[in-house]
């Protein structure tokens, strides 16, 4: 039945979902919309939009929401939907949980081994590059608007970016507080 199918599909996604939340979202779309027709493209797009906007990792949010909607869409009652969302979320986390346990154990045991050390000597500067790339990739019109599209929103976005950057770098303001402040600023100004 659908619950078992959900479990298997999300287990596979969890196992092969390399490359972060967005790569995973396209895998979920392939399985849930294209192959199995549990949801329509429109329904799925709404789910992804809400998953991006709500707190928490996008992979978890999407799995939870798809699990629920697939069950309800197939005619099951809401409580079965809750069971579906639990199944999908559990299945998507399970493979990386087991894998990361093994890796954590190995890393803590061999972190001072010369080979592991030399691997990380190469990896560490690359991670800095990864973070730079992640922030560059997010500096999009979608997140900041643009001067031509909406000058006011663009101006406020750049201001909030600088505010949060300086607040964190120079004044070490708690990130949670910074996000809350920018949320309030957004509600009032945008």
């Amino acid at each position, binding site marked *: 039945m659908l619950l078992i199918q959900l479990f298997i599909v999300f287990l596979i996604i969890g196992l092969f979902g390399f490359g972060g939340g967005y790569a995973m979202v396209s895998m979920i779309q392939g399985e849930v919309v294209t192959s199995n027709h549990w949801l329509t493209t429109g329904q799925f797009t709404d789910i992804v939009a809400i998953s991006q906007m709500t707190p928490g990792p996008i992979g978890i949010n999407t799995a939870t929401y798809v699990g629920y909607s697939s069950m309800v869409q197939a005619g099951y009652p809401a409580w079965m939907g809750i069971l579906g969302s639990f199944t999908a979320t559990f299945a998507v986390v399970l493979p990386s949980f087991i894998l990361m346990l093994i*890796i954590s154990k190995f890393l803590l045991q061999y972190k001072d081994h010369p080979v592991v050390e030399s691997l990380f000597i190469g990896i560490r*500067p690359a991670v800095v*590059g990864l973070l730079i*790339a992640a922030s560059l990739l997010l500096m999009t019109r979608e997140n900041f608007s643009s001067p031509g599209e909406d000058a006011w929103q663009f101006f*406020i976005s750049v201001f909030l970016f600088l505010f*949060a950057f300086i607040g964190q770098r120079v004044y070490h303001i708690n990130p949670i507080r910074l996000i809350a402040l920018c949320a309030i600023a957004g509600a009032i100004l945008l």
Partner: protein
Amino acid sequence: MLELFITFAKIGCFTIGGGYAMIPLIEEQVVSRKKWVTQEELTDLIAVAQSCPGIFAVNLSIFIGYKLYRTRGALVCTLGTALPSFIIILLIALFFQRFREYAIVNSIFRGIRPAVVALIAAPVFRMARAAQITLSTMWIPAVCALSIWLLGVSPVYVILLAAIGGYTYGQLLK
């Protein structure tokens, strides 16, 4: 243990827009305040979590939990990271299908998004110091960032190549 759960639930509640947004929060809570892992460990961990399949944020929390309390700790951290978003999404799915149509929700998120980008950019300098990057090694992060940003190379390959580079460098030094 309860502290571990609450810390990760708190981080989970304020991570908006993907796993990288979690890094500044982990830095603040787990590295600076509680000192559960060092800055250097966190840098290594980002590489490992990124190279593993699955959800980046969950992978990060599993290692930190494991380091402190072994398998039990990993379980608690995973639950802490996943549970808030699970509950929030369920509530939205059950009661607020039209959540996105409220104008105020969109305004709030327009304010949050630039802040999230800033918070991802902010740890770069601290990470660079922890990775002991000097003027002569600055090209490594630059090349990595450009190849991901402009050429669309997967970060997994970048880490793999960097590991091979580090290994070769280690062998040459011998």
